[in-house]
């Protein structure tokens, strides 16, 4: 069986997405006032996106199955993908944890931990690195937190473990 080109798969996903949005746009509440219905503009855009996605799908059928522009250093399979995108995946995960724990840790402590974790994962964890990263994290986030809190009077998220009020 012929393997689908990456662009074909994306085009199919886009068309499915358009279908979902088209269905959702039919359920937008219509108030009894206003001349331009709230659903009109989104429906125009979904229509345009569907048209473009269909063209993209047809174009992609003409592409060869093997992906010529694939990153040459990337190994095939899931393990190759995970290895190639290791750093971005870890960074996204750390950022996710930072946001999930923000109500508990707060912007200052959470931010320091975020910067420390990112620097350590990306830059190495020899004892010297750890000390340097801790200093960078504390100084950079401490400065930013102080600037926003006292300089600009923006109260950043306060966690359960640290509050200035």
């Amino acid at each position, binding site marked *: 069986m012929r393997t689908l080109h990456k662009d074909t798969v994306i085009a199919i996903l886009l068309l499915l997405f358009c279908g979902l949005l088209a269905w959702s746009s039919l359920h937008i509440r219509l108030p009894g006032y206003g001349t331009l219905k709230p659903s009109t503009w989104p429906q125009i855009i979904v229509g345009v996106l569907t048209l473009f996605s269909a063209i993209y799908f047809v174009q992609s059928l003409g592409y060869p199955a093997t992906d010529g522009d694939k990153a040459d250093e990337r190994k095939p399979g899931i393990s190759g993908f995970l290895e190639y995108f290791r750093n971005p995946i870890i960074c996204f995960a750390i950022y996710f944890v930072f946001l999930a724990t923000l109500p508990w840790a707060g912007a200052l402590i959470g931010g320091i931990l975020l910067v420390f974790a990112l620097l350590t994962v990306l*830059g190495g964890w020899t004892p010297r690195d750890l000390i340097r990263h801790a200093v960078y994290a504390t100084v950079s986030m401490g400065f930013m937190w102080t600037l926003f809190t006292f300089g600009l009077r923006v109260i950043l998220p306060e966690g359960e473990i640290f509050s200035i009020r």
Partner: protein
Amino acid sequence: MEHILAALAEIATVHTLALMSVGAIAGLLAGAIPGFTIAMAVVLTLPFTFSMTASQGIATMIGVFVGGLSGGLMSGILIGIPGTPSSVATTFDGFPMARQGRPGLALGLGVWSSFFGGTISAVCLIAIAPQLARIGLEFQPWDYFALVFFALTITASLAGKNLIKGLISGALGLLIATVGEEDINGVSRFDFGSDYLQEGFAFLPVLIGLFAFSQLMGDIRNPAEARRSLAQTGDIDIRIEHVKAAKIVLSKWGNLVRSSIIGIFTGILPAAGSSISNILAYDQAKKASPTPEKFGSGFEDGIIAPEASNNATAGGSLITMMALGIPGDIVTAVMLGALLIHDVVPSPSFITEAPVLAYSIFIAFFFANFLVLFFQSIALRLFVLVTKVKMYVLAGIILAYCGIGVFALNNIVNDMWTLLIFGVVGYAMRNLGFPLAPMILGVVLGPIAERWLARAVAISTDMSNFITHPWSVFFLTLSLFSMGFGLYQRDRGKKVWPLYYTPLMVLALAPAMFMMEGYIRPGIGVLMIAGGLYALYRGHQKAAEFKPVAEESA
């Protein structure tokens, strides 16, 4: 003349200039911090102006305004994060130029383009404010919609090599902007029952996520490269090349003047502003360039156009505020508020009733450009040290700063989630070959287009209004040609038809000029027809001896 001298005496005092300097520095800082908008900086300045005189207060705010417009270019060029929406297009070429080892030149070009753009705008402000402002009054919802529609068609020229992926990216941007409660009726769309989606996506978290977050992830993907600094990755010149940059900017005077005029014109139109003008100017510079393919790869014209236009927009919006008493954007609305606090009521007769104050504002704007140039030159020396920091350190700290910056925008933690989500989306799109610039354009312009369309339809459901209003006809005609620009770019030098593209566009725009009032613009229409016919004749001659340029071998 006596009013100008009296105004000069008001502004050219040590006290006022010191206040303006503080404002300019604060504006530069605010512009450089991603997520901290110029409007926020001007609003924060407002309470400090209560104790000042009207001219001092406005002068300080103008310092913040001009500083903010210029400050956005520093982060945009050096770290790829547009500090404000008005510097989005600056990153398209400024960031690649910095990556190629020329951050000093990129910053120099940005600073000097901002300065010249602002100065041209200031001269226009002093010379022809009331006349220009009348054009703004001619615009009705149909014309505004046509203008924004034209800006949306730029997607085609920003798409780069893969036109269909660029168009999909632009449409996705428009779609993102429709999520949540709409402005007109307050009806929620595409929320799927989620409170988070019901609130919609704020523009800046989306912008920073798509552009900055995804860019940083790309920078640190390779572990070895992540541990190098920009200065280690190649031969980097971190001196700010002021003389060279100023010479380049002046040598590209056509682009500079055109971009400044686009900026002034966009500023005059209420609710348009620098977030649109920088993209319009970039697009027009690309279309007018003999080498449009160089745009996006660190090309000088790609920095000059957006930076000249966004600073010129400030003068344009001041023209509307001064001549008509209409705030064109949030910043001028806050300035109007400051004037009201000092018992000055802006109105169409403001310039005649309070000439000294009016000219004080003109002169303050003129001086602000010089002050910003001076302080930015100092700030750049510190900012450029960024290129010596290792990439992973930069990425880690900037990611945290981005989070705090987007939270400060609305004090909502959900905006930080939006940042992460669009960071992932942006990174995936980059890796799948979808250009991000059209998406940003869609997110910025989508709500504006819908708003004007709703207003137009609310006034009259007769769609013929779009072809009976001259400015609407002008921009819709321009849009048609803009949509074909991608094909023009592809076929130029290879096929005959692009030789007729520009003459036909000029000829097609002429009828709109005839529809306009007065004698000057129809006169310009006559010149356009004469010029267009001559260019068509020249194009026909060239077509007869046309030899296609050989395709570059792969």
